[in-house]
């Protein structure tokens, strides 16, 4: 089992003929993901890699392929439109990899997607992977291995680092989800924790947060109140100065709010194991699962 994507995921790739889209479409196909179609306006009727049909619009692609998920690799100024197009075509799961989407666009997209009843992951996220089943996005497949741990993170390469350590320690994953580093995103920690709690195969969860906002604090409360499975966490940005965006648009300490210290405290107070270093996640998991 896994959350959000699995063997039955039938994926579209929006922007499949672009530089990033084509590269990662190939990687996903190699991994075994069912890529059933691509979308690039004007290239409708052509095929990607001589196999995957390309369509002019998402609506057409959904009609022809029965896709139930989509992953978006389009330039930032067109990403909002791409997410809304996917939601309008009633695709239930939408993953947006694009970094640099204007935040005011996201205030509209968030409501639109919710109205249409879709789930959005991202934007500015690495996507997700259910090892051995389906990979949607850019998380390198070879660092993951199937197993009982769920992972959710605001980061990309930091996640790879942690997953890599887990895989080396023979702690496989049900699903690794990158929710992205933007201040407004479609899926948050709690959404993923809720799904992992429900997922029969997941026995423990890793949560990797960073400075900015209160998502980790809210998630910690959720863990205490609603979860039966152990959760361990790490927060990046203990040395980040206030008022500066640390790469991710959402990674900013505003005034004295959103610091790593306050998030780690929330973890501790709510029974979430706190890793001081990324590598400590492995030991904490071992202890938690005993």
């Amino acid at each position, binding site marked *: 089992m896994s959350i959000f994507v699995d063997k039955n995921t039938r994926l579209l790739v929006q922007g499949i003929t672009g530089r990033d889209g084509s590269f990662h479409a190939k990687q996903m196909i190699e991994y075994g993901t069912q890529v059933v179609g691509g979308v690039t306006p004007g290239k409708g009727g052509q095929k990607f890699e001589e196999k995957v049909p390309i369509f002019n619009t998402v609506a057409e692609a959904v009609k022809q392929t029965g896709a139930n998920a989509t992953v978006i690799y389009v330039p930032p100024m067109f990403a909002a439109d791409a997410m809304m197009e996917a939601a309008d075509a009633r695709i239930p799961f939408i993953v947006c990899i694009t970094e640099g*989407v204007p935040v*005011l666009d996201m205030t509209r997209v968030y409501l639109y997607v919710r109205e249409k009843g879709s789930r959005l992951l991202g934007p500015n996220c690495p996507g997700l992977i259910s090892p051995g089943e389906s990979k949607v996005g850019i998380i390198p497949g070879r660092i993951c291995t199937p197993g009982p741990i769920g992972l959710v993170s*605001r980061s*990309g390469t930091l996640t790879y680092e942690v997953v890599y350590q887990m895989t080396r320690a023979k702690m496989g994953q049900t699903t690794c989800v990158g929710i992205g580093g933007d201040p407004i995103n479609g899926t948050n920690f709690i959404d993923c924790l809720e799904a992992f709690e429900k997922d029969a195969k997941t026995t423990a969860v890793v949560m990797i947060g*960073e400075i900015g906002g209160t998502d980790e604090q809210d998630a910690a409360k959720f863990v205490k109140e609603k979860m039966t499975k152990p959760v361990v966490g790490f927060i*990046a940005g203990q040395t980040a100065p206030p008022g500066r965006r*640390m790469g991710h648009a959402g990674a900013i300490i505003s005034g004295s709010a959103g610091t790593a210290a306050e998030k780690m405290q929330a973890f501790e107070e709510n029974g979430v194991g706190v890793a001081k*270093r*990324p590598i400590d996640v492995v030991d904490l998991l071992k202890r938690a699962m005993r």
Partner: protein
Amino acid sequence: MNIHEYQAKEIFRKHGIPIPPGEIAITAEEAESIAMSYGGTVVVKAQVHAGGRGKAGGVKLAKTPEEAKKVARDILKLKIKDLPVQKVLVTPAADIATEAYAGIIVDRASKKAVFMVSPAGGIDIEEVAAKTPDKILRHAVDPRYGLQGFEAMQLGFFLYKDVKQARAAAKILQQLYAAFVASGASLAEINPLVTTPTGEVIALDAKMVVDDNELDRLPEIAALRDESSEERSEVAAREANLTFIKLDGNVGCVVNGAGLAMATMDLVKYYGGEPANFLDIGGSSNPEKVVNALRIITSDPNVKAILFNIFGGITRTDDVANGIVTAIKENPLKVPLVIRLTGTNEEIALKILTENGLSAMTDMDEAVKKAVALATGSKVA
């Protein structure tokens, strides 16, 4: 992106917000002649991307043109929060009856633009929020409908009992929202929003921060960037398409990915060092970026050791290795270098480095420990 008060005022004015006139001076003499043209008392205000200008001596009244010249000269010599003042705004002093606050920010919790208004203006709004939270009214705007008339009136009545002033404020708030959206802002603020003795409502100050992600589609806003008022190394980093933030430590860090970059800094601290910077070379593995990154980091005299931490995913570690080799050939390093590489094309990368007399590690913790030891002169554990 920060813009200056005078630039924000120009934008607000275009959206109809009543704002007294004002002109920019870059010399004391210019300030004097502007003051002369207005007659009467003027305010001279430092134009600099920092809060707390008043407390830092960056805002002064001047009763005569001569006084304007004098205070402008003083202000133009100031550094406020490390930023040199290069421009002052000269504006006629207004008669003030009351001071209020009006601002909008993008709020991540509600996922909406949120208004904050307070009849207690002219001071730091965070202070008001901490001490007298009931003096602040917050209102989240539904982006599908914008700030409705009745919502603006509710905010207006929170600021003013008088219906004419409430209406005037409501209109200003709708104009402020329009300016905010049209400029792709993440913050827009009027502090203070004042009433005059004759009852008019006008904006005496203006602040706006623009979402960097909007700049590609708003060229006229992007053109407002004032690089002379930014940290030089950060300007260079932006031009090289790198995300760089200067800090005060001694271990220079080059990392791919923002989260990993922060975690690396934290680990430097954990092992007893101090990070000299945040630097994310991003996902694409262009050797050029590595060259630029090293150039920026080595220009900081505080840096005593440099640490690469690369987790190859999309980033190809061989590209990074090539970048390091190229950069060092151009400008031999004067400080020790620790490289940690793992992931995509790791073997090729190691070969490249070894052939050029460099070595690399694969474990993050070990690499950080070594870099800290080299920077602080302590022994490697």
